[in-house]
């Protein structure tokens, strides 16, 4: 009967890499492996890590309390350097957030089916990274109870926010980005929440997942609208993810400060964001893969592909560094030229060369296939890239401000303990959420992984007598 398939074939994408998911998985083993992580007893290790994360979160809350009480003077800001770690951390965290949407939206549109193994936790990472990012502009205004000035709400003064300012664009772009990422993540979760509902043994789990899965019953009449919604969300997120970091870069590029006032910033920032985001996905993914035995789901092929994306984006970042130098010379603008020589040879040269090493040199090792498939080297490289990308934002922000036009106004900037405490604390915020996610929600998109298994495609048949 197998030859008489009356099914009208539409040009469906056939999973060409048969080894997308390894270990001879059936639909049931996928469900079992991923769901059981959220259902079993909480591992002791989890409590330990979560305890550390919550302790850091308390450091964050305490430092923010201290900051609110005393004002932004507790930070290391000085007269030329009015933007310090707060903006550096903001841009760094937002950048990390970019990989999740890139994986879920752009790779979806490009039919890169390997994304199904990593998209769920990358999206979760995005959400929590954007929360950490939004924290910094929130607290850096000093009087944060006046934050509602950002919102276009009618008020007693009749005043509106200045919509012509890139800072407000930023507020809208990042706010939209967070909302859209949340919706995308939740939409993807609905079928998997239904799985957890159907497996639930206790009344609490039945109720919780029953409500969260909205009564999903996997009907094809539902899947049809669901797939359209998912496709459109991907289509909307794709230009959004490219625009968010472009808008962030406008915060810098629209000012007159040498080293900032350049048109290369939007593409350069976007490439850097994707680069750092993939580094963070690798860092977290490698740990989760090891701890939860996900080697069949996140295979060496997945790691290989992620390393290739980091090689591409890392090289784009390296190219941008070079091009900035070229333009600084070619423009004939003495302030611009001085800024760049100052970056490489001035008081912040140490930061500059950390950045060059981590962001330009390290990814070049990814040309070697063995490195791309070596878990330990990948892990080290991903950490280095995370560090390098933080220093990139530090170099951009601080070197330009600390030595701009007038030598009389120059000053050296160094952070205080409160800068450090708030930055470290933001990791507490991030990991508190991320560990809760790993514990209670399926970290791999089960419905999507099942959809890319070879037996999911009806035309392959195989079960006909």
């Amino acid at each position, binding site marked *: 009967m197998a030859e008489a398939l009356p099914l009208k074939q539409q040009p469906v994408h056939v999973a060409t890499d048969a080894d997308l998911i390894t270990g001879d998985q059936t639909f049931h083993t996928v469900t079992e492996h991923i769901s059981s992580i959220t259902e079993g007893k909480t591992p002791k290790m989890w409590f330990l890590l979560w305890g550390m994360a919550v302790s850091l979160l308390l450091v964050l809350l305490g430092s923010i309390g201290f900051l609110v009480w005393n004002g932004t003077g507790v930070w290391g800001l000085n007269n030329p350097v009015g933007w310090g770690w707060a903006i550096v951390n903001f841009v760094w965290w937002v950048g990390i957030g970019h990989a999740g949407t890139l994986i879920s939206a752009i790779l979806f549109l490009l039919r890169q089916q390997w994304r199904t193994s990593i998209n769920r936790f990358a999206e979760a990472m995005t959400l929590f990274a954007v929360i950490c990012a939004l924290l910094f502009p929130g607290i850096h205004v000093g009087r944060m109870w006046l934050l509602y000035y950002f919102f276009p709400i009618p008020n007693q003064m009749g005043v509106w926010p200045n919509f012509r300012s890139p800072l407000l664009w930023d507020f809208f772009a990042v706010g939209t980005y967070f909302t859209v990422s949340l919706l995308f993540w939740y939409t993807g979760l609905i079928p998997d929440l239904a799985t957890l509902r159907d497996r639930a043994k206790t009344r609490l789990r039945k109720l919780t997942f029953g409500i969260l899965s909205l009564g999903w019953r*996997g009907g094809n009449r539902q899947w049809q609208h669901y797939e*359209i919604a998912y496709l459109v*969300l991907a289509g909307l997120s794709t230009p959004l993810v490219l625009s968010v970091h472009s808008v962030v870069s406008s915060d810098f590029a629209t000012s007159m400060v040498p080293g900032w006032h350049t048109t290369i910033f939007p593409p350069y920032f976007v490439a850097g964001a994707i680069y750092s985001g993939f580094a963070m996905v690798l860092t977290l993914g490698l740990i989760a893969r090891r701890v939860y035995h996900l080697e069949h789901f996140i295979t060496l092929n997945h790691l290989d592909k992620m390393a290739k994306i980091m090689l591409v984006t890392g090289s784009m970042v390296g190219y941008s560094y070079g091009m900035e130098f070229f333009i600084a010379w070619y423009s004939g603008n003495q302030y611009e030229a001085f800024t760049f020589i100052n970056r490489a040879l001035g008081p912040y040269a140490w930061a500059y060369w950390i950045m060059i090493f981590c962001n330009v040199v390290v990814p070049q090792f990814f040309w070697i296939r063995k490195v791309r498939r070596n878990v330990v080297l990948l892990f080290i490289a991903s950490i280095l890239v995370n560090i390098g990308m933080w220093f990139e934002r530090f170099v951009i922000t601080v070197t330009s401000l600390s030595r701009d036009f007038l030598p009389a106004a120059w000053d050296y900037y160094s952070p205080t303990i409160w800068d450090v405490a708030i930055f470290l604390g933001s990791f507490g915020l991030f990991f508190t959420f991320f560990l809760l996610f790993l514990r209670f929600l399926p970290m791999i998109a089960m419905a999507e992984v099942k959809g890319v298994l070879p037996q999911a495609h009806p035309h392959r048949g195989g079960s006909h007598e």
Partner: protein
Amino acid sequence: MSKVVGVLGQFRDPTALVHGAEAVRDAGYKQWDTHSPFPIHGMDQAMGMKRSGLGYFIGLCAFLGAATGFGLQSWAHAIAYPAIIAGKPLFAWQAYIVITFALLVLFGAIGSVIGMLLFNRLPRFHHPVFYSDRFESCSDDGFFISIEADDPQFDQENTVRLLKEAGALAVDILEETDE
């Protein structure tokens, strides 16, 4: 008292489900659905379904978002509180594009999720297919066809026979008991 509200047939795999769906479609049923743990390619044709109209709804939402964004900015700066800042014109439409785009995406994304739920009539926590214990595997590795008793063609015996002939491994009668 119990009332039959539908039947539910379980199928072996996606291929069997597609064949089953074609048989049900050809028999002329209207109030029925196939259930699977993931979307199956080609099922829309196998069920004889029309294209989803959700895209138009999302398009409308996105347009509303863009109009809101552009309108709000233009109105706030040119009419409600005209103030010249940094020498920019009051109606600086170029500067409004970023937020217009952001709101286009925002409204479009909210529209796609809300539209998806509206079109699917979700959330709906109570549905006849949940009467079958077998159905719990639908979100794991079970493939099902449900036919509702509201369908004009529904006839318990014939419909069950149809499902069995179409390749169902087992068929459940979905009964509603009112206390």
